[in-house]
Each structure stands twice: as structure tokens, then as C-alpha cells.
């Protein structure tokens, strides 16, 4: 089982890390979304600073969403999923392996890229550590919740966009607490509000780690039999 789990996660990471896989692509997309905002709303620095945490999280959500679609879809379309589901791993663990791989190739690089983009949006440097911590706590939830959406829309052409829509409402708590954590830092009361938001983010991630794969496996069974 462990061998199968690792093999699957490694294969998914490898496929996604290659070009056309989506890993680097997500970061690049994040970058363009963030770069396009100042062009749209104008280069006014205080306004940008105000927008920065929100836009960073929105960019992160979008980049993460867009890479969801292929989590199961590609395997279903080319027939590999039939074979995966006949292997020794229960579907729940298949979903865990795939969500983890998704996080490694999208969530993690996005977190690393975020501070650089923060500079572009004029985010004060002292808020960066909190931003990164909040993102580290929050991004796993994006992949694990996302797995359910991806599973629900598997087998639908263009399921990707539909998955985004199904998943977005569930991303909103992450967004709210994520932005909250960064803004609390500005208020200078990290001790309370910041920590609280961070804890909530962690809790959401933990919960999604359990619920996400269960839901995804159920959705896959319902969709593919």
C-alpha cells in the first residue's frame, strides 16, 4: 500500500511538474493575475496596498482552482483511472495521494511566490511573514476541498470550470480568514485576531484533510460506475 501510494503521488507530481502539467504554470498564472490588477485599477500606491492581501488571496485561489480540473479528469479520459481503481489502494487514499500531489505542485510554489508578488502590490515587508504563514496553513485546504469538486465533475467535458464554481463557495472561508490573518498584522494585534485567524485556517485544513478525500471518493464512485 505504501509503495502504491508513494508511486502514485510521485507520478502525479512528475506529470504536473513537467510543462503542460500545471505546476510552474500556476505560479505564472498567479503572477499574471496579480500583475493585471494594477493595470486595471490604476497604479495608485495606497489603493494597491489596501487591495494587496485580498488580491494575493484571490490570485492564489484562482491559480489553485484552475489547476484542479485535471486532478482526476486526465486519468479518467485516458483510461488510467480504471486501472488505478483496480489497484490495492482504496479510492480514498488515491484521492489523498492526488490532493497531496496537487498541493506540492501548486500550493507550495504559490506560497513561495507570494512575497515577491506582495512587493509588486506594495505590501509592507513586515507583513510578509504572516502572509506566508497564513498561506501555508490555508493552501492544503484548497487542494483537499478542491478534490471533491474535481471528483464531482469528473467525466464532464470542461468539468474544470464547473468544478471551480462548485468549489468556490467552500473556498470563501479560507479567503476570509486568510485575508483576516494578514490584515490583523496591520492592526498590530497579532496576538489575538491574527493568531485566531491562523488557528481557524489550520482547523479548516485539518478538517478538509479528512472530509475531502472521503467526499472525493464517494463522488468518484457515484460518477464512474
Amino acid at each position, binding site marked *: 500500500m505504501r*509503495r*502504491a501510494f*508513494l*508511486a*502514485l503521488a510521485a*507520478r502525479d507530481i512528475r*506529470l504536473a511538474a*513537467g510543462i*503542460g502539467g500545471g505546476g510552474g504554470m500556476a505560479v505564472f498564472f498567479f503572477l499574471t493575475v496579480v500583475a493585471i490588477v494594477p493595470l486595471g485599477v490604476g497604479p495608485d500606491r495606497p489603493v494597491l496596498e489596501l487591495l494587496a492581501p485580498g488580491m494575493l488571496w484571490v490570485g492564489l485561489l484562482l491559480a489553485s482552482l484552475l489547476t484542479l480540473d485535471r486532478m482526476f479528469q486526465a486519468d479518467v479520459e*485516458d*483510461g*488510467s483511472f*480504471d*486501472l*488505478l*481503481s*483496480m*489497484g*490495492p*489502494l482504496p479510492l480514498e487514499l488515491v484521492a489523498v495521494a492526488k490532493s497531496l500531489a496537487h498541493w506540492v505542485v501548486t500550493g507550495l510554489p504559490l506560497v513561495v511566490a507570494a512575497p515577491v508578488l506582495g512587493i509588486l502590490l506594495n505590501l509592507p515587508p513586515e507583513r510578509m511573514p504572516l502572509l506566508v504563514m497564513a498561506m501555508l496553513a490555508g493552501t492544503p485546504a484548497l487542494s483537499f476541498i478542491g478534490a471533491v469538486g474535481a471528483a464531482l465533475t469528473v467525466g464532464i467535458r470542461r468539468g474544470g470550470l464547473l468544478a471551480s464554481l462548485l468549489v468556490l463557495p467552500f473556498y470563501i472561508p479560507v479567503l476570509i480568514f486568510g485575508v483576516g490573518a494578514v490584515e490583523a498584522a496591520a492592526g498590530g494585534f497579532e496576538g489575538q485576531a491574527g493568531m485566531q485567524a491562523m488557528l481557524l485556517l489550520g482547523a479548516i485544513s485539518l478538517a478538509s484533510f479528512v472530509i475531502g478525500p472521503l467526499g472525493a471518493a464517494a463522488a468518484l464512485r457515484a460518477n*464512474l*460506475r
Partner: protein
Amino acid sequence: MTTSDLRLHVSDLACIRGGRVVFEGISFEAGAGEALVLTGPNGAGKSSLLRQIAGLLDIEQGTIALTGGDPERGIAEQAHYAGHLDGLKPPMTVLETLRFWAAFLGGAAGGVETALEAMALAPLADLPAAYLSAGQKRRLSLARLAVSPRPLWLLDEPSVALDAASVARLRAFMAGHLAGGGIIVAATHLDLGLPVARELRLGREVAA
């Protein structure tokens, strides 16, 4: 694979797809070393039957059981399925593909070499799947069967796109599996040249 009391029982099976009864009341058995060939016109339900055995399609009615195998594993885990789709990833080379499946399915050491051998893929080992021709892809997807031993093989038109030499190789491959006490259920429109093959004909003769 040496369990000689291995036996696949299918009884009174029905299949409904898209709200339409494809077949019903199908029963058959197959024992170790036996091959069953599914024939019948297009749309008779050969592929559907194979997918039901593999656990990839819901069973509306009837039962499918495999006795004499590993009691702790379900049928799906004791079966190899090779369907119409190849399940290949364009950027992964032939060797990487087989290695992955060996690791995932828990294949024994040396399985990958056996597989390359069985379908004469060794010369192609370093090519990405994207570069393979139709028949080469098919050979790779069949080679997967050799990567980890499983007693029941479910093959959906396995000889499609293969050239004469590869068909002969496939024949030897299947014969070896049967000789080792395995079971094969294969759907086909062509003659697969299996030694001990019984035929199960699905569907009415085409009328329309």
C-alpha cells in the same frame, strides 16, 4: 497463480446502460487455465460485461464471484483489465510507464523486464508514449499485464491494431497465462487463436 481451484462464477447477470437493458440472464463459469471468448455484434454488451466483472460498472442484477483466489482481495484486485482506452501518459516513456504500474500494482522484481520482453518493447523503452504508433501503444498497454501477476485477465479486443508478429506474441503471452493456471475472459471480433477457448455469444444476430 498456481491455485488450480480458481473459478469465476457469473450468474444471471443483467446490464442496463443509458436506461436500456443491454443484456440479462447471462451465466457462465470459467476455471483455472480456461479462456472464455465473448463475441457478438457491435453493441451487444461485450465491453459492458467485462467492465462489470472488473467492478467498473454497476451490476443491476445477478452475481459475479471469484472463488479459490486470495480471499482478502476483491475481484478487481485480482484482475487485470485492458479496455478500449490505453491509459498511457504522453510524456512518460515506455519504461517509466511500466515501472510506475509495477510500483502501483505491487509487482514483483523483474516484472518490468518480463513485460518489455513479452511484447517486444525493449527497443522502444526510452521513447515517450506520445511517439508511439497505434499498435505500439496497444502493445505497451498489454505489457502492463505482465508487470504484476494477477490470475484473472479481462481483455477487450486485445488484438486490435497489432501487426501479425505482435498478434503471435500476444497469443503466446495469453497461452503462458493459461498454462500458469490463470483465467482469461476476452471480447473480440477476430480469432484470437486461444488454445482452450469456449465462446459466449452475446446479443441477437444483427437484424437492422
